[in-house]
């Protein structure tokens, strides 16, 4: 009995079934979903290398459009948020502009 069971056991170990390889889609990784939803800056510096790897993997798997969309959306989001100046910031900018103009006019007239 031992002679029959032992080889069966060893062969079972040697030619065991391969574990099922689950193919994970890099384009649907939570990090990329986060970048798509809240912007690339939401990923954080610690995860930036992991994010870059995922982007490359996603592009390899034909997800160029997904990556492009993330980047475009990020620029658009930034643009929407800061294309108009809020509250006191416009007044401040005008003040800086006036000071600069006054300074350079003064500099120009002083050196003439």
């Amino acid at each position, binding site marked *: 009995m031992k002679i029959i069971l032992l080889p069966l056991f060893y062969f079972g170990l040697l030619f065991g079934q391969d574990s099922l390889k689950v193919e994970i889609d890099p384009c649907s990784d939570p990090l990329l979903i986060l970048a798509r939803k*809240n*912007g*690339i*800056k*939401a990923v*954080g*510096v610690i995860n930036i290398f992991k994010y870059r790897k995922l982007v490359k993997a996603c592009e390899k798997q034909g997800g160029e459009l997904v990556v492009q969309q993330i*980047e475009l959306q*990020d*620029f*658009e*989001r*930034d*643009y929407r*948020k*800061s*294309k*108009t*100046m*809020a*509250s006191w*910031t*416009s007044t*401040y*900018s005008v*003040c*800086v*502009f006036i*000071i*600069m103009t006054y*300074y*350079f006019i003064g*500099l120009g007239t002083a050196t003439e």
Partner: protein
Amino acid sequence: MIAQPKLSSDLGFGFYEPTMEGFDKNEEVPFPTKSVLGRNILLNWGVYYEFFSNARIGYSSFTSVEIGKMKFQNSSPVFIRSLKYRLFPLETFFRWRSKIEINFTLAPIWGRGRITVETTPGEKTDDWNELLNSFGDSDPMGDMGSSDAMINDWIGYSGMIGIRYYLTSRIGLDFKAGFLNNSYDRKSWKLFNKKDIIGPELEINELPIFSFKIIYGIK
């Protein structure tokens, strides 16, 4: 985390043109020959935090360093001169295009000038006295410490207008033009335990400045 980087750091160069008569026209002590790198280029780094929509505060440091050998009567000590303009900017900005930003900055300045003479212990006092005499200080040092440097602090303000191009949503190139207005007083240098030492004549009070830097959005 949406919109512009809340926390960002930058690294770059500044360009300005100070007049340093105290070194260049010094008849008693020949200073190292002036170079563009030591005289006109400023090393710049900074950190900014977006505290309000379209506004950032931060710290930005512009440093100019000049190193070389001086020629005294009996020795040739190493001379290190640094001018550090520490800015505490308040910057407002808006996006003109999706990748282009225009920014406006006003900043108080805490400036510091530092002169170090690396000399032998035996000749330290004589060397420093020779240097100070060349600046016009007739009241020489009687005693010196083991490591000494002439230091002068001043305050000032700066204004700049800049344009920034974002290569990615994190990385951008920033160009600024503006001025530095410093209240440098050559009679308020400090050395060892003495105050009000006369230092070199420097024309750094009203200077146009240009800066170019790379921005990286951390968060």
